[in-house]
């Protein structure tokens, strides 16, 4: 199989990640539950992972690295935990349902004033629209770092400056950016960065988390056992315990920790560079094929690209249903892609692809040019 669905999850993981999970399953007790050797193995793995992840994102407080099952859980914790009744919230058309659905829910449950920055037909956001929508009443801005549909990169630093001028909290969905590029949360001015472990970080599924800047108070989404302050009736107020009720996935976290080691050893700049080159090559070749329409902003190809672009190319062939094309790629060529709506309803509407969907090709550090050539030939044959 040629696996080009890395935007959904990276299939090929470093052996060190798999080994770390297996070793953890053989040696770890329950983290933060007592002081015998097995529990300390788990507590040590979790603690070391917090420290590594904090450093990886240039974040000062390892204790404010909160582990979750994925970025959807992280975003739900952040969104539900900071937004209060009647708050004004600004988000964008480019968001995934992991942002949209919690916000729509709060629109009904907490009567929030929900505003969206519109995306243009290339899926781009205009910074001046943030200036117009983020006002003195705005409490929270929620935006993705990178679109999971177009691969367009949002200008988080500028959005942060706008949000902070109005004293709003900036929550960033880093599902597609964590591990695929250098993310410096201090430099970018992010208050809450939500990430998943199983995509660009090359960790196991069931891992993820959020980084919570100092001074940001998040109400817990879950309450329960933590191994801490048993006789208190309230969930402990200190991070990370405040947001981590229940047994952690320390086996997965051990794998995620090994994945961070892999990324550090490989070099995040090398990963970004290789993925960008793969993307450029694929884009340049497929745009020579009649009948193919690519979505997103590719004006950067051949030019300097200050924000860069993710290793994602979404396209359609003529008026063919995206599901049929993806199925043909899978059945006839052994190529795995993602068709349909990609949990990004507002962006598909902005792109005009609500009914056709799109076929998303997404690459990883392990993708080869030979694999791309096979995909290019397949697209030529289907389009002919």
């Amino acid at each position: 199989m040629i696996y080009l669905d890395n935007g959904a999850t990276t299939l090929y993981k470093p052996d060190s990640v798999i080994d770390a999970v297996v070793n953890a399953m053989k040696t770890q007790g329950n983290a933060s539950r007592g002081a015998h050797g097995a529990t300390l193995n788990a507590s040590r793995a979790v603690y070391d992972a917090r420290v590594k992840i904090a450093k990886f994102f240039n974040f000062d407080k390892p204790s404010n690295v909160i582990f979750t099952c994925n970025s959807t859980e992280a975003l739900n914790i952040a969104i539900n935990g900071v937004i209060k009744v009647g708050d004004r919230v600004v988000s964008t058309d480019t968001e995934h349902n992991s942002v949209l659905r919690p916000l729509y829910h709060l629109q009904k449950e907490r009567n929030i004033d929900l505003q969206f920055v519109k995306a243009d037909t290339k899926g781009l956001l205009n910074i001046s629209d943030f200036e117009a929508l983020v006002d003195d009443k705005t409490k929270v801005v929620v935006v993705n770092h990178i679109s999971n549909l177009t691969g367009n990169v949002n200008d988080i630093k500028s959005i942060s400056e706008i949000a902070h001028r109005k004293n709003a909290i900036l929550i960033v969905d880093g599902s597609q950016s964590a591990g695929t590029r250098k993310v410096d949360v201090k430099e970018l001015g992010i208050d809450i960065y939500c990430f998943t472990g199983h995509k660009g970080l090359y960790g196991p599924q069931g891992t993820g988390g959020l980084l919570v800047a100092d001074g940001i108070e998040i109400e817990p989404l879950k309450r329960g056992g933590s191994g801490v302050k048993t006789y208190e009736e309230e969930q402990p107020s200190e991070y990370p315990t405040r947001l981590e009720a229940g047994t952690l996935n320390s086996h997965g976290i051990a794998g995620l920790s090994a994945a961070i080691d892999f990324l550090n050893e490989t070099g995040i700049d090398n990963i970004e560079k290789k993925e960008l080159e793969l993307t450029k090559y694929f884009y340049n070749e497929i745009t020579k094929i009649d009948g193919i329409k690519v979505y997103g902003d590719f004006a950067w190809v051949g030019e300097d690209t200050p924000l860069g672009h993710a290793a994602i190319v979404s396209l359609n062939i003529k008026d063919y249903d995206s599901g049929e094309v993806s199925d043909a790629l899978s059945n006839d060529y052994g190529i795995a892609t993602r068709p349909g709506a990609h949990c990004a309803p507002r962006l598909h509407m902005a792109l005009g692809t609500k009914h056709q969907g799109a076929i998303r090709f997404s690459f990883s550090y392990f993708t080869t040019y030979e694999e791309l050539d096979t995909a290019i030939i397949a697209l030529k044959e289907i389009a002919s």
Partner: protein
Amino acid sequence: MDNSEFHYFIIFDTYEEAMAMHDDLDKSSITNKISPAPLDLVSGVCCGVSLMIMPSDKEVIDKYLQKTNLKYMKFVKAERTFKPKRDRYC
């Protein structure tokens, strides 16, 4: 550790604070052991582990705690409620 009738314990709000200080003490070659917290002394309102310190190191720890920026809840003395293996061969 030794066979004293009591030990000292550094108590924490979270496991992360305990692990951070454990690593820092190890770096400074100050003997310490991650141990279950002496629940009775803190009414169960702490994290489940503490750092056990030998009585002979009390002054060293006092000085360390005055200087460190790491967070902890309190430094307490706890008498042993029994001696492990005391009567093994009786």
